């Protein structure tokens, strides 16, 4: 990165460290923080949407919808994350390529499945073999977001479902007495009031999601834990910057990062909690009302 780093073997002390910390590999490491944060920022709302949809379906009066909703939450919650990540992602990936294959190469005669091998025509590969590595990474990232959203959506669906049941019946009855129809009751009374019950469960999920990102490497996305292990391992002079086993320092750095993430999350969640309790028929809502008078 800097011109003074051209020959690492002549460097000493701080200069060496400065050059070491700005190698291309370290820049990849720093970039992976961005990847993880982006993943969190995209996945959390998507998972929440999945959860909301799942909860609404589970409460539906229409039987098939209810079965889909209940089935989704029960099945996904029952399968270990790591199995889901290995199985579902491969199935999704192969499903997409199979569809592309049907569209692009209808004349292809070789079998697609050949024992354990999965082989579609070159035109059906997603992304194409020839496309830049960036697209391969982007594709892996999208698969990761979909999978994370699906898994965490199922847990969120259960939390939100429970929260919807927890809203006092009296509140809904009052709304009905005012002449609101079912849809209005749901939108104006049930949903605004259920968040405060859902929040503890959802905040748990958020915390678990933050820590689940090492699963990314299973999908070929290089995350912060992968890089910390790779960079921290002992390096012989085959590398430009040989050093002994420094994994401890790298993982300490990750520890600090995760603790900071947790602290920031806590602060934000407390604010949301206060905001949501405002004017609610709950203990904390009542406390707020008393404090104000």
């Amino acid at each position, binding site marked *: 990165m800097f011109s003074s780093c051209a020959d*690492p073997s002549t460097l000493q002390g701080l200069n060496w460290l400065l050059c070491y910390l700005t*190698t*291309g*590999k370290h*820049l*990849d490491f720093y970039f992976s923080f961005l990847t993880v944060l982006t993943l969190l920022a995209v996945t959390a709302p998507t998972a929440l949407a999945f959860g909301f949809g799942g909860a609404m379906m589970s409460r539906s009066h229409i039987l098939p919808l209810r079965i889909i909703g209940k089935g989704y939450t029960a099945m996904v919650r029952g399968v270990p994350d790591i199995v889901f990540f290995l199985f579902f992602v*491969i199935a999704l*990936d*192969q499903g997409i*390529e199979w569809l*592309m294959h049907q569209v692009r190469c209808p004349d292809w005669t*070789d079998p697609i499945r*050949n*024992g*354990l*091998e*999965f*082989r*579609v025509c*070159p*035109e059906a*590969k*997603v*992304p*194409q*073999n*020839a*496309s830049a*590595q960036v*697209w*391969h990474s*982007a*594709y892996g990232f999208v698969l990761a977001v979909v999978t994370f959203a699906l898994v965490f959506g199922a847990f969120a669906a259960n939390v939100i479902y429970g929260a919807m049941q927890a809203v006092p019946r009296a509140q809904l009855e009052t709304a009905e007495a005012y002449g609101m129809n079912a849809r209005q009751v749901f939108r104006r009374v049930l949903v605004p009031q259920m968040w405060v019950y859902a929040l503890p469960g959802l905040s748990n999920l958020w915390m678990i999601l933050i820590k689940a990102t090492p699963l990314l*490497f*299973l999908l*070929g996305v290089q995350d912060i834990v992968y890089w910390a*292990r*790779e960079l921290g*391992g*002992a390096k*012989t*002079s*085959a*590398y*430009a*910057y*040989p050093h002994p*086993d420094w*994994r401890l320092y790298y993982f300490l750095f990750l520890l600090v990062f995760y603790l900071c993430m947790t602290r920031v999350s806590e602060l934000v969640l407390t604010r949301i909690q206060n905001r949501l309790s405002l004017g609610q028929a709950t203990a904390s809502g009542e406390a707020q009302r008393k404090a104000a008078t």
Partner: protein
Amino acid sequence: MKKLILTTALLALTASASLAQTVRMGTEGAYPPYNFINDAGEVDGFERELGDKLCEMAGLTCEWVTTDWDGIIPNLQSGNYDVIIAGMSITDERKEVIDFTQNYVPPASSAYMALDAGADIKGGAVSAQTGTIQAGYVQSSGATLIEFATPDETVAAVRNGEADAVFADKEYLAPILAESNGQFVWAGEDVQLGGGVGMGLRKSDTELRDKFDAGIAAMKADGSLNELIKKWFGDTVAPF
């Protein structure tokens, strides 16, 4: 605007293949001097140089991909890359699921490395990388096998006393031993395992396998493969 970005992305993802065939080379990137990720963040090492040379000879465009060792064969089978070039020894077990080219490194020694030469390698705890021929050997040798996902962790386990010795390819251990300032020593005798190192391909990819096979044969014939082995491994590997 959003639609525009999306369409471009889709186009880029699905654009039809360019003129030269692109082959994706899968490697581990954690096994110097065979393959490792250098400080610029790129795949480097003996296999990088060899792979690039072979691709050039066969007129292929090659892209390098890294993956963890555990999933290196399943990922090949599901088509995430086309070739495994990761210091993988040719064994009968692996031949049942994938095809190999002829070997580009002759059958070489595996060795035990420990903190002292008298370490108990037949009855003690020996570390090896998961899914390697060395791990299989340790299991049948009577020692307690401790498996790790990466080669680096197998060595670290000896350093911190978790294992009595590490069992791995001698070429991998030799530079570590040489630079350990006497901390590490060889223990016991070297062991001959496997049929040399070759490139792994899907069984259905015979055409590609033949191309690489021809390339390796040509490099063996003109001696350039031996030069490359000498450059990366020094004298620890006997040339062809």
